[in-house]
Structure formats: structure tokens, C-alpha cells
């Protein structure tokens, strides 16, 4: 008996159509629940790695590779870890630890001889964090880690930290203590209302939790901590005049940030030798420990921004930074109202290639990154801080920061051409020689004078 070929053909087409329909219907659920990667395929893997992925040994191989990476950490072989991190995250995009460790490693561990990290890697670390959080959007962890990179490492553009931590806060598994730090990010980004509102919300939750379990130490501690933090913020905002500023009556009151204090900034950069700078200057603020950011970068770098760079550059994780770019950032430690630092970039040619002709040396101080006792005087946004020459309200809109820029050429930095025998020196207007080289351990203790009698000492 022959088959009814027409009926069979119709059945075949019908089954194929139904199967195709089910396939398209089911795919979104597979993608949400079981796809290793949310937004990509396996194009980053070589043939043998594809075979591993195909055979279903992804997680196993990724786990073994990660253990192998641990030995590289122990040996200090940091370069060997980078490709492993990438390979592991491709094979097993659910490895949160690898993403988090990878971000930290990329952003922090590649340093020069004087322990300055290579910040050209930061965009890669951020891209890795973005990819990791997308592939693991059920947990707060990588949102938090990426926010922490902005908050702690970049220590600027705090609205970015806020944005990441706001996403982290929406996740069910976020630890209570880690939600608290979002208020700090709000404060640093200048959004005081949200900082207070967030503290109040957390305090309400903590209070409820404490009422339920009054003998639970952690619940009590959380409530007390939040209460203290909220009190501190309210007192500081009041004393620093932020409520008054918002209400428009700042001029009528006597606040801790008045009158603005002249920090008396000045700086000089001397190119002592090829790629070796001596940086010295004044900072008329008594407490020890202020760090003024210094940045040396290509003048015409398209990713350059005042005292920083464009950190976010898309989602592509490229573990090889821009090898042509030069970007040095350091903190100038202030002691006895002066700073002095010798910056030697000569031993790290790959980190400081000096491929372009013009460079800028930038000095930057933003009180938002400063400690509370200085913020008490200078305000959250620099209302209580001024400088005759270098007060700037443009490089960070809405904030008063100290910003100065000097220019150097490649010949000057490398001490070549006409500068082989001449010592290049560039300095800010009003530079004051202090004669200090900070070799002394003696710290001059200021007298206990009132605010009104403060002097810059210059």
C-alpha cells in the first residue's frame, strides 16, 4: 500500500509550521532562563573552545580555568590572568566572582613602578561590569561592583555610581548594609534630598525590623547606624548652609562655610629628567592629608576631559587599552600647607608612551571627594572654598572646584631637542616657592584660632 503523499506533504508542512511557531514562542523564555549570555553568542571563542561549549562542559572548564588563574595571582603574573578572565566569562557568563574579581584586577592591579594604576584599563573594567550585570541581572552584585568602581576608583562623576547603585537596590538579594552607601553616593552627586529620603526609607525599614526582633543585635545595629547617619547628614546640611542655599536665605545666616576660605593654590612642574617630573606647590589648608589630583594626559586626546577621561566607552570588553594614549593620575599629598612629589614615568614606557606632541598637566581638587571635616568648612559643593586664581565652576557643573592646567610638549617631557640641556619649568600664576621637599617628618600644628582668623599662610 502506497502512502497518500499529498496528505503526508500537508502534514509535514503543518508540523514544520507549528514547530517553527513554537520555536519562536519558546525562545524568549529560553533566553531569560537558560541562555548563558543575554546579548551575545560565542563569537569570542576559538574552535576548540566552541567544542567545549557545545559539549556542555562550559562551567566545568571555566571553573578549572579560574582555579588556574588563582595560581597566576599567587605568582604575580597579572598579564596571564587577563585572557583567562575573558575566556571564563565567555564560557560561563554566570560566574559572578570572575566578573567582580576581573573588574577589580583590571582597574586596580596594573600599576607603574610608583604604584599608580594604569587608568586606561578602567573603560574595560566598566564594560566588563556592564556585561556581567546584564548577564546576571537577577542579583545586585555586579551592579554594586560597577557602582563601586565609579565611587571609589574613578572617584568622580558620582551620578554614575548613583545610577548603578539605584539598580542594585532594586534587587531582592542586596545586603542591607550595602543599600546604605547609596545615600553617600547621593550626597557626593549633590542630590541631598534623595540622600535624606533614602536614609529615611532605610531607617523606617530598620525600625520595623528592630520592633519585630528587639533582641537581634544586627537589627539594632542597623537601626542605630542609620539613625546616626541621618542625624549627621541633617546636622551637616544645616550647618554647612545647604538648606539655606536651597531656601534662598544663605546670605542671611552665619554658616560654617562662610566666608569662603582661600586655599591659596599654586604649583610648579619641573622636568628633572626624561619623563621625570618634580611637582611642588602650595595649598593653604592646615590639616595634613589633603590629596590634590594631578593628571598628565595627551592634550588632544578625544577621550580627554578636565582632570579625567571619558570612562564609559560602550559595552565592548576590550582588554587591551589604548596603547597610544598617555594618562597619568596621582594624588599630591599635602603636609604643612605644601606638596612636593617626584613622579618618575621613565620606567614604564608601555604605560606612558608619549606618542603625541602636546600634553597637559592638570591639578584638580573637588571637596565632594574630601573628608567630612573639610567638607564642614568648604561645603558639599565648595561653597566655603575659594582661590584667587583657580576657582572653577565650569569643569564640574554645579560644583566649585580648584582646577589649573599647565602645558608641556613632548620634547620638554622627554628632554630632547632644545630641551636636552635646558630644564623645562612650567608653573601657575602666583607660584610661591616653599622650599619643602617633604623629607621632614615634622608636622606643624596649627594654633586653635577661630575660623575668622584663618590665614593661608602664604
Amino acid at each position, binding site marked *: 500500500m502506497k502512502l497518500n503523499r499529498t496528505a503526508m506533504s500537508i502534514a509535514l508542512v503543518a508540523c514544520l509550521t507549528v514547530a*517553527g511557531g513554537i520555536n519562536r514562542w519558546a525562545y524568549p523564555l529560553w533566553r531569560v532562563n537558560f541562555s548563558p549570555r543575554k546579548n551575545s553568542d560565542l563569537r569570542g571563542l576559538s574552535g576548540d573552545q566552541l567544542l567545549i561549549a557545545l559539549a556542555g562542559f562550559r562551567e566545568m572548564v571555566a571553573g*578549572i580555568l579560574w582555579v588556574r588563574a588563582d595560581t597566576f595571582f599567587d605568582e604575580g603574573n597579572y598579564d596571564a590572568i587577563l585572557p583567562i578572565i575573558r575566556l571564563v566569562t565567555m564560557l560561563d557568563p554566570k560566574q559572578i566572582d570572575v566578573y567582580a574579581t576581573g573588574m577589580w584586577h583590571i582597574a586596580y592591579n596594573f600599576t607603574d613602578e610608583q604604584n599608580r594604576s594604569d587608568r586606561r584599563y578602567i573603560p574595560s573594567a566598566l564594560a566588563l561590569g556592564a556585561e556581567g550585570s546584564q548577564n546576571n541581572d537577577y542579583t545586585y552584585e555586579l551592579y554594586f561592583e560597577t557602582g563601586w568602581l565609579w565611587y571609589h576608583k574613578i572617584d568622580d562623576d558620582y551620578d554614575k555610581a548613583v545610577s548603578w547603585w539605584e539598580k542594585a537596590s532594586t534587587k531582592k538579594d542586596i545586603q542591607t548594609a550595602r543599600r546604605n552607601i547609596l545615600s553617600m553616593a547621593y550626597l557626593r552627586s549633590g542630590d541631598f534630598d534623595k540622600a535624606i529620603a533614602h536614609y529615611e526609607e532605610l531607617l523606617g525599614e530598620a525600625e520595623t525590623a528592630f520592633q519585630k526582633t528587639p533582641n537581634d543585635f544586627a537589627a539594632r545595629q542597623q537601626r542605630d547606624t542609620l539613625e546616626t547617619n541621618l542625624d549627621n547628614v541633617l546636622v551637616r546640611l544645616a550647618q554647612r548652609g545647604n538648606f539655606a542655599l536651597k531656601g534662598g536665605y544663605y546670605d542671611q545666616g552665619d554658616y560654617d562655610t562662610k566666608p569662603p576660605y582661600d586655599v591659596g593654590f599654586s604649583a610648579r612642574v619641573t622636568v628633572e629628567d626624561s619623563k621625570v617630573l618634580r611637582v611642588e606647590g602650595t595649598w593653604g589648608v592646615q590639616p595634613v592629608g589633603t590629596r590634590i589630583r594631578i593628571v598628565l594626559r595627551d592634550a588632544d586626546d578625544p577621550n580627554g576631559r578636565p582632570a579625567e577621561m571619558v570612562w564609559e566607552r560602550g559595552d565592548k570588553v576590550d582588554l587591551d587599552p589604548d596603547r597610544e594614549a598617555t594618562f597619568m593620575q596621582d594624588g599630591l599629598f599635602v603636609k604643612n600647607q605644601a606638596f612636593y612629589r617626584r613622579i618618575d614615568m621613565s620606567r614604564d614606557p608601555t604605560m606612558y608612551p608619549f606618542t603625541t606632541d602636546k600634553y597637559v598637566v592638570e591639578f584638580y581638587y573637588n571637596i565632594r571627594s574630601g573628608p567630612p571635616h573639610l567638607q564642614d568648612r568648604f561645603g558639599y559643593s565648595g561653597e566655603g572654598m575659594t582661590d584667587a586664581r583657580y576657582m572653577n565652576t565650569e569643569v564640574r557643573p554645579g560644583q566649585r572646584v580648584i582646577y589649573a592646567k599647565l602645558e608641556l610638549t613632548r620634547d620638554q617631557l622627554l628632554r630632547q631637542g632644545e630641551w636636552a640641556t635646558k630644564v623645562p619649568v612650567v608653573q601657575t600664576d602666583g607660584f610661591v616657592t616653599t622650599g619643602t621637599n617633604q623629607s621632614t617628618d615634622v608636622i606643624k600644628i596649627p594654633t586653635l584660632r577661630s575660623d575668622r582668623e584663618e590665614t593661608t599662610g602664604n
Partner: protein
Amino acid sequence: MNAVFSIAKTTIGEAIRRRVLLVILLIGVLFLVIAPGLSVLSARQNYTVLTSFTLGVIQLTSAVIAIVLTVYLLPNEVERRTIYTILSKPVYRWHFLLGKYLGAVGALGMMMLLMSTVLVLVFKIMQREASMEDVSRLATAPFFFFVQMSLLAAVAMFFSTFVSPIVNFFLSGGVYLVGTLFSPVFQDLSENKTLAAPVKGAATLIHTVVPNFAQYNIQGGIINQGPELRSVELYYAQIVLYAVFYIAVFLIAGMMIFDRKEV
């Protein structure tokens, strides 16, 4: 349908007696047994590596068994001329093909059941604190691997009606490879709004015609216990239905070819 079941029963008996399949099965079981040896890794990785490795072994072994088992079913009957004896009886060709397929799936199911039992035992020994819920969660993956391999067996059965076993082996392997690795890629391409219409059309066609084996790889949701699975029962029902219809597609196509084949 008695004829179909008789053929299926005979096929299961033959498959169990085939040494090559038993060797593959033995190797698979051996790998499952030595899996705990990988527990030298850190404690945090232990669960991940153990489950990934054991499920990987089951999937790979099952895929090899499914293809090796199926590619020889029809050619062997023709070579041994036993097919003439069967077809001389009141048995339709589609009965024969369906019986052979069901027999292959039955044998595959028995072998996979053995491997899954070993998997559960190894898992319980290594992860003593694991609850029954964890074990049943783990056992979900082999079940869907079985559905996946049933689909692969249908592909191999279809090809066996018109190509030689060696060619069939690589052809079925190739389809499995494409259907596993590239289905998500083609799906994404077909949904990409920035691509040209012909490219999207081609991607949609490939994605529709080539069976999507990737959607049975649900081990990610089992190995990584963090994400909360959404509408998972619906999804499981969808992919079982998908397999049923797609197996029907390959079997109908195979029947139509086998019906005209000079045997």
C-alpha cells in the same frame, strides 16, 4: 500498531546487544564515576564543576549513542537482507520506519536512565547536604537531554533513508552542531532591526528549518542556582511540543523517501 511495537521491541534487543554502544555507555558511566575526583577544586566551585561535568558527560555520551545507534538501523537491515522478510509480511514501510525509530528511542532511554541513575548517586554521595528538591532539579536536565536526543535520532533516521551511515554520522553531527550553537545566533539575527531584509529572511528560514537543539540545554539554570526561573513549566511544555512536531516532520519526510526507495 502491533507490528510497530514488535519492530520496536526487536530493535531495543538488538541495540542492547551491540558492543559499540555498550562501550560508549561504559565510558560515559566511567566518567560519571570519576567525576568526584575533580573535587580538588575550591569548595565554591565544587558544585558547579561536578554538575557541569556530569551533565556534560551525559549529554555528550547520549549524543554519540543517539547518532551511532540510529545511523545503522536501516542500512543494517538492508545489508543483512532481513528487511525483505519483514516487508514481505503485512507490514507497511512506515510501520517499519516508525518501529525502528521507537526502538532506537527506547534503547536510548534505557541507556540514559542508567547514566542518570549513576549521576544522581554520585551527586548524593558528593553533595550530602543536597535535598530531594536539588536532586529532582538536577534530574530535569537528563530528561530534556533525552527529548533532545530523540529529536537527534529522528534527524539521523531521516538521513539514513537516503545516505550511507558514515555520511549520515557527520551530517547528523553537523545538524546537531548548527542547531546547538547557532540557533540563538540566527534567532537574534532574525530579530535584528538594523539588518537588511534578505539577511533577516535567510536567518529566519535557517532558524525555522534547522531544529533548535539549543533550547534543550537547560543545565545553565540548574548549575547556576541564583537566577529565578520564569514560567518554566510553560517553557518545558513548549519544548516537548516542539520536539514532538519536529520529530513528526523528520519521520514523515523519512517515510516519504523510504516509501519510494528501491529495497
